[in-house]
Every structure is written in structure tokens, then in C-alpha cells.
């Protein structure tokens, strides 16, 4: 049942740090977070790690395991071969605070830059009527648990610190898409600002965000690409542009 596990855990802070070797017991069915807790309780009392639910619901325990952005509470130890050394590091796209804990405030700043839902005037609580098929697209994006693994893996900011100021990241592209597809939202400039302020155009649809999303949200196919197409409608498609001008003049729109 139990097996002995060899780990390399990154320990340190924003100035120094490195990988430390640890050997620890693992039981049947345990996930990496269990192992980290065992290390914490028996060998490194001050090993810093974030977690909450231990059920893949809160998105706190994001880290990189063997170089891949993952939730530690949803990563089975058994998924690694017996003799493999498991390397655990903090997220590498964000500044580290201590050990496995990083400063993810970037994401909260970006959240602040996206206007929230704006319901039509005159609609009172209890009155909205929306069909299931109309809310389903946005509901997929609202599954997001804000683990920020997609943000961590996105090369636009992971590999280019300087892009952070002009790029909101996949987590917030799905937020914009959610609102742009919301059946009642009244804000009409979301496509334009997605491109001009939130850096949608910097995404080169290489899909790493989709690959790491623990909620299996199809970020690229269902949010980013549809948003790119909507941006084209608005900004780059001469025919649609002409069409909308004509319709406006004739008072159809």
C-alpha cells in the first residue's frame, strides 16, 4: 500500500531559493497535496503552501508538478511511475512569496479592469427571463475556480513580464466572453475593449490555457476564438462594417 516517494520541493523566497530533496511515505490513493502536508507535519513545519478545499473546487493549491501547472489536490501520486522523482515548484509566472506560495495579485488587478454585468434599465429583480440555451455558454465560463493555472501557463506573460500591463490573460478573456454572451448584458463595447485594452490580439491561440484548466473549460475554442471572431465583426471586416453603417442609416438597427 505505502510507497516511499522521492520529492524535490522548491523552497525559498523572492531573493534566494532552490530545490530541496525530501523522502516521504505515500499511501494508496493519496494526492500530491497529502504528501506536502505530510512533509509539513513531519519534516518542514514551516513549508508554505496554499490550499482550502482539497476537492478541486477552490483553486487555491495551484503549483507546478514536474514542470506542469496543476492543482496539487487533484494530482494523484499514483499517476507518476514508482521510481520517478517528483519535482514541485511554485507557479513560475508570478512573483514568489515563499516556498510554494506566489503573489497572484496580478489577477485581482485585471479583474478590476473589466466592467461587471450591466443589466438593462427598468428590469426589476425577479423579472429577468432567460432561456437555458442562452445562458449555457456563459455558464461554462462561470465554472472557473480562479486557480490561475491558465494565467500561469500562458506564454504571453509567463515568458514576457513586460506584457503583463497590456494583457488580461485567458481567465479574463473567458470573463469578457461570459459577459459578451450574457443574454441581458447591455454594455456594447466589450469586443472593442477586449482587443484594445485587454490584449486579446496578443493571444496566439496556442491553447496552453485550455490544456491546463482543471475545470476543463474550453477556453480557447469557446471563449477566445469566438471573441476574436466578434472582434473581427466589429473592427476588421469591411463588409460587416459597411453593412452596419447602412443598417444604421436606414434605421434598421
Amino acid at each position, binding site marked *: 500500500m505505502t510507497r516511499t516517494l522521492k520529492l524535490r520541493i522548491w523552497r525559498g523566497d523572492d531573493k534566494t531559493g532552490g530545490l530541496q530533496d525530501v523522502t516521504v511515505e505515500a499511501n494508496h490513493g493519496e494526492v500530491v497535496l497529502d504528501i506536502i502536508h505530510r512533509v509539513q507535519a513531519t519534516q518542514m513545519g514551516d513549508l508554505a503552501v496554499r490550499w482550502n478545499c482539497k476537492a478541486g473546487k477552490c483553486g487555491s493549491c495551484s503549483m507546478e508538478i514536474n514542470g506542469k501547472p496543476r492543482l496539487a489536490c487533484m494530482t494523484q501520486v499514483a499517476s507518476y511511475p514508482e521510481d520517478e522523482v517528483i519535482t514541485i*515548484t511554485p507557479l513560475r509566472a508570478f512573483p514568489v512569496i515563499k516556498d510554494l506560495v506566489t503573489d497572484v495579485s496580478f489577477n485581482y488587478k485585471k479583474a478590476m479592469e473589466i466592467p461587471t454585468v450591466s443589466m438593462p434599465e427598468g428590469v426589476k429583480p425577479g423579472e429577468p427571463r432567460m*432561456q437555458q440555451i442562452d445562458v449555457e455558454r456563459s455558464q461554462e465560463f462561470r465554472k472557473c475556480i480562479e486557480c490561475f493555472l491558465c494565467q500561469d501557463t500562458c*506564454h504571453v506573460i509567463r*515568458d*514576457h513580464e*513586460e506584457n503583463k500591463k497590456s494583457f488580461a490573460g485567458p481567465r479574463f478573456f473567458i470573463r469578457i466572453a461570459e459577459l459578451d454572451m450574457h443574454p441581458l448584458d447591455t454594455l456594447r463595447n466589450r469586443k472593442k475593449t477586449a482587443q484594445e485594452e485587454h490584449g486579446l490580439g496578443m*493571444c496566439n*491561440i496556442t491553447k496552453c490555457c485550455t490544456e491546463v484548466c482543471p475545470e476543463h473549460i474550453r477556453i480557447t475554442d469557446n471563449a477566445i476564438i469566438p471573441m476574436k*471572431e466578434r472582434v473581427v465583426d466589429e473592427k476588421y471586416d469591411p463588409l460587416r462594417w459597411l453593412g452596419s453603417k447602412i443598417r444604421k442609416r436606414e434605421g434598421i438597427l
Partner: protein
Amino acid sequence: MADFTVPALTRIWRTLDKGSRLLLMATGVFSQGRAKITERTLRTDKWWLQPLITFSVLIAFIFYATLRAFENANYFAEPLISPFYSPCLSDACVPGSSLLGHLFPIFHVWGMTFSPALFILIFPLGFRMTCYYYRKAYYRSFWMSPPACAVAEPHAKYTGETRAPLIMQNMHRYFFYAGLVFNVLLTTDAILAFRNSEKQWGHMSVGTLVLLANATFLWFYSLSCHTCRHTVGGRLRNFSKHPIRYKAWTLVSKLNHYHQNFAWVSLIGVALADVYVREVATHAITNWYFF
């Protein structure tokens, strides 16, 4: 005194290996404040395999397609025409191969006849170049931006698709429309292949099947396209007000799930169809008739 002239610094820079250069540039995963880890990636799986395969297959295709496009021969064997050359639009086309007549005269470049394939290939090429799936494929495997997820890319600067030329990717929908026209033409070619070499109807050969399969794959590729998904219904805010478009969108969404697969199958399909026609045209094989 240390030498701080530009050539001296460049010399020092060149002596460093890539890893330390990146470290010195102190960007990306090596930026100030991020966890100090010297590896570009700690992935232990074969992350390089996928881009390598993509790269190899695409290169092989490009190589073959270029050769064939310039060959200007062996693309027609009544009633079969190679998808690389259809529609054949120039006076240079071999007799019987032009479905839509001749739009272009013969002209020569550096003494060579300008191959009729070159007039039309721009469309399928543009379609695939701007395809959302192929973009992912070549950004990863050719441009290494990024080579694989959580593997640091080698570029110091990155602006994505915000500037010329990559901003032109936004023209994908026009190539999609063109792609549809091509699908119709290639489907017509497949239908015309229900004839024998004397142009009599009611026959079917292996070549018929090859062209049919090719056209089918191309339809699946086009119908599963992201732009198609957007056009049929994706751009709507309220599906419930457009039940038919919602149905269409649902269907296209299902196909869209497999767009990557259709992209490869249709690419290889085109190549194989061309190989078959060429073999028949050079008499290496005979086009076997079922009836």
C-alpha cells in the same frame, strides 16, 4: 579598465550559452521576483515530440506541394484532376482540365511556364495559414512560441497577432468563403469522375472514390471551422430567438470539436488525391473501374 564598447560586449554575449543569456536578459520565467529556478522547463515528459511531429509533417507537405505546384504536368488524367490544379484557369492548362474556362494567358517567368496551380493555390494556402488550428500548430512547432506549454520560448519580445503581418490573421473568414467555393469545385470534380475517360456517365473508379473522399474531408474541414461556427450562430446573443441557427450552431460546434483531426485528415487527403492522380497521369498505375 573594463572594456564597455559595443563590440566587446557583443563578444562576451556571444560566448554565453543560451541559458545564461536568458538569465541575463532576466525576462520571462527568469524575471526579478519569480522563483529562482535555472531550468527553462522542469517538464519530464517528451514535450518536444508533438511539435517535432507537427513540424516534420508540415515540412514534408510543403515540400511535396511546392514540387507539385511547379511541376506543371501530370495533374490531369481524364476524368481525374488533381486538387492542386483545380480549377485550372490558365491557357497553359492541358486540354479538358479546365472546368471554368481560361482566365489567364500563358506567361513565362525566367523562361519557365507559370504553373496554373500557382494562380489558385494561394486560396487553400491562405485558408490553412490563417486557420485557427494551423496557427496553433505552426506557432508552436515552427516559431516555438511556445514550443510546448510551460516551456520557455526563445524570443525576447512578443506582440502576438496585434501587428502586421500577423494582424492579417483576422482575414480568415474571407479565406473561409473562398474555401467554400473550392469545396464546391472539388465536389464537382468528384462528380465528374463518375465518367469514364470517354466522358461517358455512369462509371465509377478508384479515382472517383479518391476525389470523393478528398472533397468530403474538405467539407468536414470547412464546416468544422471556427469562423463557420461563428457565422452560423456563434455571433448571436440569444439562441432562443433563432432556433434554426441554434441547431446549425450546435451541429457545427460538434464538428468543431474535431477540427484539428479534420485539418490533418483533409491535408493528407489532398496530398494522397494528388499522388493518385499523378500516378494515373504518368501511367504508373491504371485507374481501376468498378463499372
